[in-house]
């Protein structure tokens, strides 16, 4: 089943849940990097510019770790 899932997803039907998870990980890393660089918490715009996405996307994806658990549960379990 894992194989089929991977195949279907890579075949143009990439699920939002996975793609957002990736962005969410990038946001976490950017936050760490920029905190070290600026010696303070970065702003939403700073992270957005750093990753080349809109500030709203940062907010949306940044919530993924919380909300995806529930999406994951309903969809895949």
């Amino acid at each position: 089943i894992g194989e089929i899932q991977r195949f279907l997803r890579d075949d143009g039907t990439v699920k939002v849940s996975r793609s957002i998870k990736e962005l969410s990980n990038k946001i976490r890393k950017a936050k760490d990097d920029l905190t070290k660089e600026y010696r303070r918490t970065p702003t939403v715009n700073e992270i957005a510019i750093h990753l080349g996405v809109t500030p709203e996307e940062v907010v949306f994806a940044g919530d993924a770790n919380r909300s995806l658990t529930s999406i994951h549960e309903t969809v895949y379990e």
Partner: protein
Amino acid sequence: MENKMDLSFSAKSENESFARVTVGAFLAQLDPTMEELTEIKTVVSEAVTNAIIHGYDNDESGMVYISAVLRDNEIEIVIRDEGNGILDIDEAREPLFTSKPELERSGMGFTIMENFCHEMKVVSEPLLGTTVYLKKQLTKSKAICR
């Protein structure tokens, strides 16, 4: 059971991106593909931009209204303004038609909405405003791979 939301916001161009993401976040509950999500966000952008620049001529005191309903595997979106309205809807829906060529509009907004949705209806009354009804079914192929 169906899930619904209503959103309204000032007709400011900064809110276009906010509206895209909000409808996208609501749709995310149906776990769409990235393609479907992008299509819906594009459609919302087009309709909201129309409300702001054509409906209200960028008068930021106007309000844009969006409602969305999730039902089974389908999203229904209604985007409304209380602005100028459209005199000739058939003409407005034609590909490449734009009443604001000076703004370098492409005239493709309605065509894009029509292409990315399964149903589109436009109701408008000059001086009262414009309402766009959109409906999109999501693919169900996902269900198979559960």
